[in-house]
């Protein structure tokens, strides 16, 4: 079975400082991994995805994530936080062997302080 753990339910950073949102996954096969962002009262938007051999994945708005198979991790980073980054972030795992089932982590709320 697949599962996702997001180690921090809430992360608070100052504007201009780095962001690190942690994600660990469990999957029996080679997974696809995603990060989605949800701004207040909005739908979910794809930030980036890992589906190939390139382990460092770049996404929109300066975010990137590194797939580390040995650590079963897919942490999300950004060098410099912006006020507009304040939102809920979800790490997602999927595997075609599970019938296209996308399993969401519990989410991490990112606050950005001025």
């Amino acid at each position, binding site marked *: 079975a697949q599962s996702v753990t997001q180690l921090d339910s809430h992360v608070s950073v100052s504007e201009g400082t780095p962001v690190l949102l942690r994600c660990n996954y469990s999957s029996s096969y080679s997974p696809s991994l*995603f990060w989605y962002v949800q701004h207040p009262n*909005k739908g979910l938007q794809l930030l980036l995805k890992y589906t*190939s051999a390139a382990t460092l994945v770049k996404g929109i708005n300066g975010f990137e994530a590194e797939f580390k198979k040995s650590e079963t991790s897919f942490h999300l980073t950004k060098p410099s936080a912006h006020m507009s980054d304040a939102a809920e972030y979800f790490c*997602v795992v*999927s595997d*075609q062997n599970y*019938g296209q089932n996308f399993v*969401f982590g*519990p989410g991490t709320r990112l606050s950005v302080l001025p």
Partner: protein
Amino acid sequence: DTAVSQTPKYLVTQMGNDKSIKCEQNLGHDTMYWYKQDSKKFLKIMFSYNNKELIINETVPNRFSPKSPDKAHLNLHINSLELGDSAVYFCASSQPGTARTGELFFGEGSRLTVL
């Protein structure tokens, strides 16, 4: 032109009523989903259809019944609404790849409030 659209966006109703939420995607995807997001923002899959065929049916009360008239539409009907059904319901679609999973495309969500 919205890729995945859901209606209505807001729904306020009384306990015991029956309501439906409609979803349409114009991306040509084969697979569609319904997710429920609770008050703690946790997203849980409810159903998934691939080309009109049910492929994922999680532990959901049988008061919830999905219907897929064609692969571009997946509607959700809820009978005898309960207070605990209050949530945001998201429709999504994806296109399975030959080797890897395609990503999910989400609608804007339908906020259901049961009084």
